[in-house]
């Protein structure tokens, strides 16, 4: 079955193909998604399979594209927009935030916007400050948007199918380092759906609860492997969707571990995973803490170009290991 160890690109492509076969109202639009196959190769051969109307190449006009998707969604379609780099959502923020997110509410339910916006997110490819951001925090603070951060090919396929089904706008942030790497789990061939708003516990351990998002999930898992050798047992939780956010497994785990670490790539100052900390600190889970919370996040810098700088700017496996080791050692 190792032929089902797909990359995230392959898994996403399968999800889109299934959705397009299931529903005539699903179509994809974006820059270079046609013959080119997508800036990261995600749409691949879909253009040849579904034609240029449903896999629709656009000019370089992010605001126009997202706006057109909003209008199509209001008119009964289910568009999937691909934005090449999540950084370019900046171009389309009005349509995302002032239109898509709010229309259903503002018009009193008369309309809704079943739209998926997929974008490549995160650093690690040497593309520097304007092509490497982790912007999930912007969208998470906008009521009316759902925000998904798949951490593996398996998750990506199941979550994308749910996102396409959802009658609301969904921001789907794909870490670009995951596109080309086969996952550690088989990806089932047909359709399966992972509900939005359900966290996944990837690993259970009694010493520390790690909540990580996107690419940091695999780094946390790698760190957990290393830590296990030293006898430090770690729980790793992947929220999968940050809006809505499912905290129940975190609370449950903290009852056992008493120690919490959050790990995100986005800049630390004002970053989204503060929400996890806040929910713990404002509720009964606070009483279970036996140590200060550990926060690992991107440095408060634009992502730099040179590889040694770029690596230093965001948490790596060794940073997670070191921080975990010391919080467990220092707080008994």
């Amino acid at each position, binding site marked *: 079955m190792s032929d089902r160890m797909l990359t995230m690109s392959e898994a996403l492509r399968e999800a889109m193909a299934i959705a397009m076969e299931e529903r*005539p*109202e699903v*179509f994809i639009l974006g820059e270079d998604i046609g013959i080119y196959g997508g800036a990261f190769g995600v749409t691949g051969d879909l253009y040849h399979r579904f034609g240029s*109307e*449903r896999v629709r190449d*656009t*000019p370089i*006009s992010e*605001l*126009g*594209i*997202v*706006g*057109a*998707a*909003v*209008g*199509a*969604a*209001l*008119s*009964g*379609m289910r*568009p999937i927009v691909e934005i090449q780099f999540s950084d370019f959502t900046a171009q389309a923020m*009005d*349509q995302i935030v*002032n*239109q898509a997110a709010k*229309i*259903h*509410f*503002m*018009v*009193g*339910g*008369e*309309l*809704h916007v079943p739209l998926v916006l997929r974008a490549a997110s995160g650093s690690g490819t040497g593309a520097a400050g304007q092509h490497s951001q982790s912007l999930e925090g912007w969208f998470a603070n906008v*009521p*009316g948007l*759902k925000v998904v951060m798949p951490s593996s090919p398996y998750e990506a396929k199941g979550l994308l199918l749910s996102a396409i*089904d*959802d*009658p*609301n706008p969904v921001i789907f942030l794909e870490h670009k380092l995951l596109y080309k790497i086969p996952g550690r789990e088989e990806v089932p061939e047909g359709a399966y759906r992972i509900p939005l708003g359900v966290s996944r516990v990837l690993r259970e351990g009694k010493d520390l609860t790690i909540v990580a998002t996107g690419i940091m999930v695999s780094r946390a898992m790698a760190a957990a492997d290393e830590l296990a050798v030293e006898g430090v047992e770690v729980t790793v939780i992947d929220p999968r969707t940050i809006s809505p956010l499912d905290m129940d497994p975190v609370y449950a785990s903290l009852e056992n571990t008493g120690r919490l670490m959050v790990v995100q790539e986005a800049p630390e100052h004002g970053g989204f995973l503060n929400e996890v900390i806040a929910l713990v600190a404002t509720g009964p889970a606070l009483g279970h803490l036996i140590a200060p919370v550990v926060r690992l996040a991107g440095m408060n810098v634009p992502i730099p170009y040179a590889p040694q700088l770029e690596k230093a700017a965001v948490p790596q496996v060794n940073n997670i290991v070191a921080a975990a080791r010391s919080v467990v050692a220092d707080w008994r």
Partner: protein
Amino acid sequence: MTTIPLLTGNPLESNVHARYALLTMSRIRKLEEAVEDLFGRGMMHGTMHLSIGQEASATGVCMALNIDDQITSTHRGHGHCVAKGADLTRMIAELLGKENGYCGGRGGSMHIADVATGNLGANGIVGGGIPIAVGAGLASKLMNRGTVAVSFFGDGAMNEGAFHEAANLAAIWKLPVVFVCENNGYGMSSSTELAFAIDTLAERGLGYGIPGYTIDGNDVSAVYEATQAAVQRARNGEGPTLLELVTYRWKGHSRSDKNLYRTKEEIDEWKTKDPILFFEHLLKDKGMITDEEIAQVHAEATSQVIAAVNEAMKGVPADPANLLDAVFKKVSA
């Protein structure tokens, strides 16, 4: 009755059409006057953007559309909404923040939409509705629906990037879209002379390969004719058209406007070009209507608006209790 069914055709096509066009313009005018009054009496919250003086453009455009043709509208959207066939009671109820308002009190003046009449909504964002109309046109094309999407926007909106990107997409994909720029001379305080370095805004179509026409926006029949041609072109798969409808807003931009950027003389001069009076004169010249009938039409409009206000007042105030539930559409639906 605070709704009337949409009638299509040239306002001069028959006495029935003429009466419909006049009634529609009158309903818009009376509604706007009622809104101003409610606002003045402190019964309405927020702000308001009145379309008094611009009734012919909303009316003429919508008479060229079928009920399932779609529109996107603006902050100055009451006229478009009425002309497309909305219920005056639900409109006013919305302004009063009532449960039975179009938006259940959640949107107010700038966010009224009406699925039943193809109105995809007013918009508080200048230019916000333009790409949305393009998307509606794209949906029509993808699904072979034969419907057209009309985007209303102001002169000011034309300088937003949203206009640009939307216009180009519609042009290259030959979408069934009509871009209707209501050029009332100002974007808030900013005159078209200062905001553009071209003679007519219709010229802006040139850069996209979109034919553009400048029309007297206060002549409801001329507006209809131009729109009808554009709609036909759109339905034929020949792509979008840009219509510049030259008009004027009599009132300030919004409640806080002191009109410092324009003269009283200019306002007064435009009042002599009242689209309603202009149309009445035209009809009388053609012997299509009598003074008595005109008075009747206005009386009917007035009574509809009064009925709508009275009915709306009886509505239950919107209830904060269910706000959180209203953000997302339920997944099951």
